[in-house]
C-alpha cells in the first residue's frame, strides 16, 4: 500500500523446543501497517506475543519468518530511528534523571557540545513535567516519574517511530491517567508515529487511532483491526460521553472475553485473510464511516483513508 510508513508482512515467531517438547509457534502470519503520524495500540492476552512483536520492531529480537519495513528500509537490528519505552522503565539507577536522558541524547548526536545537549535534555524533561527533579536518581522518583523519564528519554532522540511496551502497566490508575494525558499532549503536535502495547481497553480508546486485536496464543494472529471512531480531540473527561464510546468499548471487551479464545480455537470468521484482517468501525454505520473516512470495501478488501486528517 502506498503511504504506509511501517509495514509488517508475514511475521512468525517460533521458539525452539524446550527439552522433550515441540517447537512453540507464538504467533504466525502477522500482517499490519502503520501510517506516518498514526497511534496504534495492540491488545491481546498474555502469551500472544505482543512483546515479541514490539521487540522485533525495535530490532532487539528476530522474527522466524517475515519482514518489517520502516520508511522503505528493512528493519534489521536496533536503531536510533525507533525509540523504545520499556515496560519496567529500564532507567540506569546510577544515573540521575537528567543523565539518563543525556545518555540517549549524546548517543543520538555525539557531535553536539555540552550546552546544546543540556538545553535539549531540559526541554524534554520539562515536556514530561520533571523540571526540578532532574538531579534525582531513579530510586528517589515515584513509579510515575520514572516512567516519565523513560518517555522523555525515548522522545528526546526524536525517533521516527516510538515503541511503547505497556508503559503504564505498573502504575496506579490516577498516575496512569495523568501520564496518558501528557503522552497525548506530546504526541499530537509532533504527529509522532507510535506503536504501543496495552492491556487496558480504555487506554487504547483514549490514545489509539487504530487498535490491533490479537487472538490468544500460541499461533496467535491479528484477528481484527478496530478503527477508533471517537473524535481525535478526545480527552479522558469527555471520552465516555461520545455516542460511539460504549459500542467500541463493548466490541473490544467482547473480543477479549470471548472471541480472542474462539479465534485461537480455529473459529476464525469466514473469508478471514491474515494478509488483511477485517477492519471494523464499531459505533458507526456505513454512512458515518464513509463520512469519517472509512470508505467500505474496494475489491472485497476494507480500505482506510487517512482517518486522522478527516477527523481533524
Amino acid at each position, binding site marked *: 500500500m502506498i503511504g504506509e510508513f511501517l509495514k509488517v508482512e508475514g511475521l512468525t515467531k517460533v521458539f525452539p523446543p524446550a527439552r522433550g517438547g515441540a517447537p512453540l509457534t507464538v504467533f504466525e502470519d502477522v500482517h499490519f501497517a502503520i501510517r506516518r503520524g498514526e497511534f496504534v495500540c495492540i491488545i491481546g492476552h498474555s502469551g500472544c506475543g505482543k512483546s515479541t512483536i514490539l521487540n522485533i520492531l525495535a*530490532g*532487539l529480537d528476530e522474527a522466524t519468518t517475515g519482514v518489517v519495513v520502516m520508511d522503505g528500509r528493512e528493519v534489521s537490528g536496533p536503531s536510533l530511528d*525507533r525509540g523504545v519505552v520499556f515496560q519496567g522503565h*529500564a532507567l*540506569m*539507577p546510577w544515573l540521575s534523571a537528567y543523565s539518563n536522558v543525556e545518555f540517549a541524547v549524546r*548517543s543520538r548526536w555525539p557531535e553536539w557540545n555540552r550546552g546544546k545537549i543540556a538545553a535539549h535534555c531540559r526541554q524534554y524533561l520539562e515536556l514530561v513535567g520533571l523540571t526540578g527533579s532532574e538531579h534525582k*536518581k531513579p530510586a528517589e522518583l515515584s513509579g510515575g516519574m520514572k516512567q516519565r523519564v523513560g518517555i522523555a528519554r525515548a522522545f528526546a532522540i526524536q525517533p521516527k517511530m516510538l515503541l511503547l511496551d505497556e508503559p503504564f502497566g505498573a502504575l496506579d490508575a490516577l498516575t496512569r491517567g495523568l501520564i496518558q494525558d501528557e503522552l497525548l499532549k506530546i504526541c499530537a503536535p509532533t504527529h509522532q508515529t507510535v506503536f504501543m502495547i496495552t492491556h487496558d481497553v480504555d487506554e487504547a480508546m483514549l490514545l489509539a487511532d487504530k487498535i490491533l486485536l490479537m487472538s490468544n496464543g500460541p499461533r496467535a494472529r491479528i484477528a481484527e483491526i478496530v478503527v477508533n471512531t471517537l473524535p481525535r480531540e478526545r480527552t479522558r473527561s469527555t471520552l465516555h460521553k461520545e455516542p460511539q464510546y460504549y459500542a467500541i468499548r463493548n466490541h473490544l471487551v467482547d473480543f477479549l472475553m470471548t472471541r480472542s479464545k474462539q479465534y485461537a480455537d480455529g473459529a476464525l470468521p469466514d473469508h478471514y485473510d491474515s494478509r488483511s484482517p477485517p477492519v471494523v468501525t464499531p459505533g458507526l454505520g456505513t454512512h458515518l464511516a464513509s463520512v469519517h473516512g472509512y470508505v467500505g470495501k474496494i475489491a472485497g478488501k476494507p480500505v482506510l483513508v487517512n482517518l486522522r486528517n478527516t477527523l481533524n
Partner: protein
Amino acid sequence: MSRPIGLRAALLSIALFALLIAVWHFATLPAEKAAVADSEYARLMGGKKSAGLPTPAQIGETIVKHVSDPLYDNGPNDKGIGIQLAYSMARVGAGFALAALLAIPLGFLIGMSPLVHRALNPFIQVLKPISPLAWMPLALYTIKDAPTSSIFVIFICSVWPMLLNTAHGVASVRREWLDVAKTLEVGALRRAFRVVLPAAAPTIVTGMRISMGIAWLVIVAAEMLVGGTGIGYFVWNEWNNLSLNNVIFAILTIGVVGMALDLMFGWLTRLVTYPE
C-alpha cells in the same frame, strides 16, 4: 532508656574491652609463690621476671615505644614497625594492582562471552583452590628473587576473587540496560564503560575487597617464608628473639591495618553502589 543503639553498642564494646584487659592482667600477674619456692632456679635464670605471657601494661609500653619511633633503621634485623609495614604494603599493593590489571579486563571478557567462560572455566577451577604459598618454590626458582616472589604470591591469590566477581557482575548486568544501549546504537567501548562497568561496579569492588583481605592474610605467611623485611618477617624474627611483647604488638598491628584496608574498600563499595 531509649539511647541510640550506636551509643549502647559502643558502651558495651568498651565494657568488654575493659573486661578483657582485666582478665589478661590478672592471668599474667607474676606468680610470686612459684618464684619463692624455687628462687634458686629463678636466680640461675638471670632475674625475677615472670616467664609467662606479657602483661597488658608491658604491651602498652611496647606499643608506645614502637608508635613513637616507627621509622628507625638499625640494620637488617632491627627496623621500625613503620618501615616493616611499608614493605608489606608495597608488596601487597604491587601484587594486588597487577592482579586487578589482569583480572578485571579478563573478567569482563568472561562475563560477556559465554564461549570464553566455558573455555577458561576448567583452568580457573583447578588453579583457584591452590594455596598461594604452594606457588612459592616455583616462584623462587623461576623469578630467582625472594621479594618479587612474594609479590607473585600476592598476585596469584588476589586474582581469583576479582576475576570471578567481575565475570559474575558483568554477566548479570540487567538485560534491559543492555537493550537500552542497543536501541541507542551505543558502541562497544562506550557500552562497556558507561553501562556495563557502572552496573557491575558493586560486584567488582566486592571482589577487590575479598582479594585484599586474602592478600593481607597471605603476605604475613609469605614474608615469614621469604624473610628479610616486612611485617611477616618481623613476627618471625621477634619469635626467634623470644620477644613475645613484640610478637603480640605485631599481631595487633596486622589486625588494625587489615581492618583499615577493609574499611577503605567498604567505603569504595558504598561509593559505587546504586539503590534500585
